[in-house]
Structure formats: C-alpha cells, structure tokens
C-alpha cells in the first residue's frame, strides 16, 4: 500500500464562454469581450481575459462597461458551443481517469492518487491534461490547474493563480495559501457568508481558525461553523465530499427567464409561463420524475411576488402543471405590477416507478397525449410539437448554466 497522501487536481478553463468564442472566431482573439445572453441584453455574463484585465467582471452592467472600456466588443453567448466543449472535456477527463468529476460547465476534479503509477508526478499529469485540452478545444483555450491534498485546496489554488498556470500546493504551503487567499475565492463561501465573516474580521480562510466557536456559531449557525472549520484546515466541506458519492436524484426542476423590458401584457405573460412550464415538464418527463410542489415567482422593478402550493398528488403533465402555475397560483396574484422576470419550479420530485398512476379517464387521456408528444420530441427535438399558444413566435429553449445544475438531464 502506498503511504502517499491523496492528491486531487482541479481543472478550470479560463474565461470559458469568452475563450471558446475567441477560439472559434480568430477576429475576436486578443480583444476585450463582454459576453451577453443575447444582443440587446445589458448584463455581462462572461468576460474575456483581456476584458477582465480592464476591470470588466461577470455581472457588470453593459452601459457602465461601455463608458469605462469604450473598446469593449459585445458578443452574444453561444450555449451550444459551450455545451459541446464541456462534453468533449468530460470525455477527455474520463479517458484519463475513472475518478473524474465534472463540477461545473468548465471545471472538473480528478483524483490523482489511483493514477500515481501511470505518471511520474501530479505535475506531469497536469501538463498532459493541459496539452490534451489544447488538442481537443484549440490553441486559444487555456486553463488553470490546481494540485493539492483535497479538492477544496486544489480549487483554491487554481482560483487564486494567474491564468494559464499549474499550481501545486504541498502540505507545507497549505497554511500560506489559506492565509493569502480571500474568503471570496474559497469554494462554498458565497457573498452572504463572506459578509458575515467580514463582520467577524475574517477576510482569509485561515483566520477562521482563530474565531471563538461561540462567535462563529452565532454568526453563521452550527452547520456552517463546522463547514468553515473544515475549510480553514484545508479539508473538504460536505458539498465537495459528496462529489465522490453517487449522484442523488434531482429534487426540483425550475426554469426562469428575464425579459428585455418590463411587461404588462397578460397574453405575453401567459405564453411565457406556458413556455417555461413546457420545458420543466419536458425535463422531468425525460428523467421519469414527477413533483408535488409547484412554485411561481415574478419580479419587476424593485417589486417581487411568489407563491407555491404543495399538492397531495404528483404532477408530470404539461397541461396540469400549467393549470397549477397559471390558473391557480398566477391568478392569486392581486397587486399586479409590470414584470421582467418569471420563474416556475416543480419540487418534491420522485421517480415515476414509486408513484401510483391515476385511473381517471381524463388523466389517462392526458398521459396518452403526453407520451405521444414525448416520442415526437425525442425524435425531432423539443417543441417539434407543442400547444397552439407556442405555435408562432420565438420560443424560449433550454440553456446550459455555468453551475450545470441540471447535469443529470443534460447527460441523459
């Protein structure tokens, strides 16, 4: 048995959305790019390395960016390009190791320890990965690779390194990394947790070691106290440890859309809700799931409204889900305001196999229609057949997100 400590690699493609566009379109290389969801949108969802160097960040507002960086080039995101590249990366990493875990659209972990007889060192393995990514995705695509005892440290190392670098963190260097990295760089410490820690005078993960237990518990609660203590020692918090366990079935499926401008048109809102519901129903049906909790969220300007209902039975038909969203929840919304964002969600999901099917003739008829539609969608694509309300005009189609929350659906 080897006495060597565990070693993990974290691979993170630099500025993923923007870099892939630059790889595809040589005219964009070397230019500061602001990637937006679609032309006309004002929120920057990704920035190229060149734009980041000029201070453009994800989430920046385009009108402000255009003032500070007049030479910025605005391009729409290409979700198909990103998803195709992620699939190629997944195939590549799985060909290199049986212990690879896709963490997000552009990040993966690889457990190096089982491979230590195949490669001279983790560094040699990292160099091979970098060279393979170059071959698979193209010469413009660069990545950061962090190598450390845990996934948490490996990710922290790659997050804090400069672009296109390999960083190996020895046991002796762990404390230095934890003391020099910012809390915001640490995987699991989000904006709200970061603010709570800042109120305790904690700005670097290593400082958590010196906060009295009672103060930490009061600020962040018992669960996060334990997770933060693990992080402060460079150990893996729960959500990273879970990566090596079999994936849990999805507990909820949702879809949201932010419009171009505030909308008061009932017809447009109804159509949009139907579109979102159709996508949610399509996803749960493909995964053979059904849910009992239906939620609706609307927002516009500085106002928001939400509601949900927990049903005694499970829903897995578009028609029924739309009934609960539109006829039931939406109609309960009294103090209407123009909306820009709509979100629907179906939760408390369970597998079809565990749910008794209704014997009512109307339900059986809906099931027969839905099954036929599933077969057509599986052959000709989503929305090849749909309700008349969506027949004309632009349809909102499924998109991949950076976090890849629906990877169980995407890899079906």
């Amino acid at each position, binding site marked *: 048995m080897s006495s060597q400590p565990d070693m993990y690699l974290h691979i993170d493609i630099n500025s993923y959305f923007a870099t*892939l566009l630059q*790889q*595809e*379109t*040589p*005219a964009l290389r070397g230019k500061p790019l602001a990637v937006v969801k679609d032309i006309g949108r004002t929120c920057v969802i990704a920035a190229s390395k060149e734009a980041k160097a000029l201070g453009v960040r994800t989430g920046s507002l385009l009108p402000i960016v255009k003032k500070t960086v007049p030479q910025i080039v605005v*391009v729409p995101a*290409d979700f*198909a*390009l990103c998803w*195709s*590249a992620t*699939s190629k990366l997944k195939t590549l990493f799985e060909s290199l190791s049986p212990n690879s875990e896709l963490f997000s659209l552009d990040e993966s972990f690889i457990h190096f320890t089982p491979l230590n007889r195949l490669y001279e060192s983790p560094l040699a393995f990292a160099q091979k990965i970098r060279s393979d990514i170059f071959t698979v995705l*193209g010469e413009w695509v660069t990545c950061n690779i962090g190598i450390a005892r845990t996934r948490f440290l490996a990710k922290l190392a790659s997050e804090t390194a400069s672009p296109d670098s390999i960083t190996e963190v020895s046991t002796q260097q762990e404390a230095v990394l934890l003391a020099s990295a910012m809390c915001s760089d640490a995987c699991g410490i989000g904006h709200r947790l970061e603010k709570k820690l800042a109120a305790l005078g904690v700005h670097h993960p290593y400082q958590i070691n010196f906060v009295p237990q009672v103060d930490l518990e009061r600020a962040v609660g018992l669960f996060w106290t334990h997770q933060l203590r693990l992080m402060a020692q460079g150990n893996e918090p729960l959500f990273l440890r879970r990566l090596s366990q079999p994936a849990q079935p999805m507990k909820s499926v949702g879809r949201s859309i932010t419009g171009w401008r505030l909308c008061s048109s009932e017809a447009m809102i109804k159509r949009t809700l139907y579109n979102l519901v159709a996508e949610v129903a399509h996803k749960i049906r493909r995964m053979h799931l059904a849910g009992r909790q239906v939620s609706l969220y609307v927002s516009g300007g500085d106002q928001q409204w939400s509601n949900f209902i927990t049903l005694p039975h499970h829903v897995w038909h578009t028609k029924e889900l739309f009934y609960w969203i539109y006829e039931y929840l939406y109609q309960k919304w009294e103090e209407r305001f123009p909306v820009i964002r709509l979100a629907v969600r179906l939760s408390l999901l369970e597998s079809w196999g565990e749910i008794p099917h209704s014997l009512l003739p109307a339900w059986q008829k809906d099931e027969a229609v839905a099954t036929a539609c599933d077969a057509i*969608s*599986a*052959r*000709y*694509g*989503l929305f*090849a057949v749909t309700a008349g309300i969506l027949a004309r005009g632009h349809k909102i189609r499924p998109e991949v997100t950076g976090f890849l929350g629906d990877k169980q659906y995407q890899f079906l």
Partner: protein
Amino acid sequence: MYQTIHEAIAVVGVYNHACFTPKKFLWKDRVYQVADITSVTDVRDGEVRERRYSCVAESNLYRLVFNRGEETWLLEEVWCE
C-alpha cells in the same frame, strides 16, 4: 458579428481516424479552400444531430453545418466585421 446565410453547399474533405475534416466547399459557384478549422461543435435536439465546423477560408470565418441524420451541408453563417 455573424451574418446568417443558411444556404446549401457542397463540401469536400478527408476522413482521418474516423473524423471528417472539410478541406473545401462550393458556394454560389465558387470554391473556398479551408485553411483552418477553429472549432467543431456538436448540437443535438432530440435525434436531430448537427455538427458545426467553423472554418477559416480566404481570411473569413464560415460556419458550415452538417446534418448528420439527413447528410446535408449548409453554409449557416459568415463572420462580418
């Protein structure tokens, strides 16, 4: 910005290790030599599978789309500064 063309084209290429590489294409009675392929993107919707080749030809970038079910080629888009 990409300009949509969406016109049928003929493509000549080579298969190497079960991988097709376009070498030239015919569009509007003119042959374009492919100098470089910058990206290959697989798109799938149901059983509709397409492969998009982003090709540099005569200093321009063209997106050629191959429908893998129908075995048809389209010049989908061209890059315009």
